[in-house]
């Protein structure tokens, strides 16, 4: 019998999602989206996926939500779609959802996929946490490419935004309470990030979670004007930004010179390599995620 909380969560999520997308006002939608994200994190926790819950809360909900909020400058005039179109699409979508759900119900129960293989070999990978082992070792190629996706997206964002001076986030002058809070929170975030990277080999944690948390701290500093906007002109920013991808490139390329495979870690060095790689990646991820936010002096407030 299914536990009531799972049933509740599973039913609540699509309903809230529908509200998120059907609300007329965008700021309300974004706030509801953040609430939706927190509920999703709860669902991940119920499904024994603490790594995913961490990343979802930090990146998927936290940073994405903040990004969405920072892009809501003026109120968009809602253009409600025609009711017939809405009904037609809803009908088609419902039919597709039912079809897909029945397909999912036909999937083999209790099948474990690659899980046993991973758990059997995780010792060799150098880390005890299986998700980290998959991400950083067995399927490191995916993680390498994903890091490049992040980097390329940040280059794209910078290229799109360049040349517009007034591209900052709208902020009202911050109260002293907020400033004090920031002074307390940000150092704690830095410590938490470091802890997550270090623990990532034995427990849920790792580069993405840590990077997202660091980015959160950086964005707080940006919003309260305690930190200058990140620009590629600054040496420090460039070092942080490229640390991860460059190290990943070296880890991928160097084994080829010794007759090995791409991304082949020498036996016994897996753990240390992964830790070093994750630390560098944390810095790069944090920098990139922060740079996704509009940098620069805020534009004067406009109405409507």
């Amino acid at each position: 019998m299914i536990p009531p909380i799972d049933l509740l969560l599973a039913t609540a999520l699509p309903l809230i999602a529908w509200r998120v997308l059907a609300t007329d006002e965008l700021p309300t939608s974004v706030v509801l989206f953040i609430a939706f994200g927190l509920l999703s994190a709860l669902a991940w926790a119920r499904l024994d996926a603490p790594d995913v819950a961490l990343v979802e809360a930090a990146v998927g909900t936290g940073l994405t939500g903040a990004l969405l909020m920072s892009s809501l400058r003026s109120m968009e005039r809602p253009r409600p779609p025609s009711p017939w179109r809405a009904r037609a699409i809803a009908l088609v979508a419902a039919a597709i959802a039912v079809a897909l759900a029945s397909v999912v119900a036909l999937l083999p129960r209790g099948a474990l996929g690659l899980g046993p293989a991973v758990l059997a070999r995780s010792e060799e990978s150098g880390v005890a946490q299986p998700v980290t082992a998959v991400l950083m070792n067995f399927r490191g190629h995916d993680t390498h490419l994903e890091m490049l996706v992040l980097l390329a997206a940040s280059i794209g964002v910078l290229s799109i935004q360049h040349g517009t001076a007034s591209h900052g986030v709208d902020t009202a002058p911050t109260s002293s309470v907020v400033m004090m809070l920031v002074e307390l929170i940000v150092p704690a975030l830095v410590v938490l990030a470091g802890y997550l990277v270090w623990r990532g080999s034995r427990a849920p944690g790792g580069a993405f979670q840590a990077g997202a948390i660091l980015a959160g701290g950086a964005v707080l500093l940006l919003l309260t004007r305690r930190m200058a906007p990140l620009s590629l002109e600054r040496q420090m920013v460039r070092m942080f930004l490229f640390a991860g991808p460059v190290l990943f490139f070296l880890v991928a390329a160097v084994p080829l010179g010794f007759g090995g495979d791409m991304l082949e870690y020498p036996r016994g060095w897996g753990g240390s390599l992964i830790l070093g790689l994750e630390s560098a990646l944390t810095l790069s991820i944090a920098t990139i995620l922060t740079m996704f936010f509009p940098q620069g002096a805020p534009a004067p407030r406009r109405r409507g």
Partner: protein
Amino acid sequence: MRGVPWLELTILAPLCGALLGLVLQRAVAVLALVSSLSTAVASAGVAVLVARHGTIRRSVGAWELPLGIQLRADGLAALVLVAFAVVGVFITAYAMVHFEPGSRAARSFFPLWLFAWTGLDALLLSSDVFNLYVTLELTTLTSVGLVATGGDPAALSSALRYLLFAMAGSLLYLLGVALLYGAHGVLDLDLLGAVVTRGPVTWGALALITCGLALKAPLFPLHGWLPAAYASAPVPVSALLSGVVGKCSLYVLVRIWLGVFGVPLGRAPAVLIGVLGAAGVLWASIVACRQQRLKLLVAYSSIAQLGTIFLVFPLMGRAAFAGGAYLVISHACAAAAMFIAAGTIEQVVGHDEIDRLDGLAHRLPLTFVAFALAGVSAMGMPPSGGFVAKWLLVRTAFELHEWWWAAVILIGGLLSAAYVFRVLRGAFVPAPITETIRRSRASDLLALGLALLALALGLAPDLPLALAAQGAPS
């Protein structure tokens, strides 16, 4: 005993160039050229390896299946790899001429293009269905960034439209992957191909993956984002997208169909894709004839050519497969040549309106010759790569007694002749030479080189076809 790791080098060479180009921004164009030449050499290495030894497999991280990810180079991958690398070198050289050295556009273009190339080579060599998702994302997001380097509102809004379509496509694809993994517990294409059987789960995964890739390829009628994106992007970007990077999703679709779904599910879905492709050929060719702007005309021509490639699905067989591969590489050369020629025209006279090109051929002879030669391949006239490709497809259609596919191809060819001649007709009208035009010879030579390549593919098809046949399905 391991030889030179050519496969990995095709992925790492452009990546190295991209990273160096970001660090040493002043030398980015030169670094890009060096990187592109190295990638071309590495791609040639892969082709030689495959020609000698058949399909090559390498693992990443030295983990064997099903735990790790494998790289796989068969004849098709090797052929496309080399062709794209050669076209890539040409376009890189053209970009060096087109962009102001040191300009913001140049500093964004080259790294983004090299990242796209990294994703492209990783995609061509990947043998893992989730890894294909990540490589697709890399090529797509960099493409969006490339379109947006134009900077003007038209480029930005078409980039945004493209991105939204692409996001939808990726999610459909990913859900399909989830179903496949849920059913079979493996992500490798070869392993999946061995265990996939007919059933609702397989149908569901096929539908999702195909719809997702159809949004990105694009397949008629989901192509809405393409004309605006190709027409408003900077010329090197249009050349890249139509010739090289834009073919990725189609490639992945072919791979997954061949490797995973082809056998169990029979012909019906393939025929559906063929019908949509045929519709795309006819519709896009007709629309191309009515275009006012040259770049839009070439964009619609690209949609038509893509539609022709989709005809490979219902015609599946060794010859049709080779024809499709040949069409991919010939169109890569021809489309790039056409866009570069269009770009030169636009740069010289300040517009690309077809009706106002009278007499221009006398002032820009090489440009229009390049356009015409590329048009020969697009039309499918001998001697060109396009002709060889279409002939293989038509022959297969007749062998299967399904002459209507052949009719579509031939009508498409006639229509493309119509719009190519429309462009050339006005340009070759005699007109008094009013003033001499100063422009760079280099772009004309590059366009001409690409167009001649498209023709050369028609003159010497044996070697490429033999390569494509390595590991091809029967």
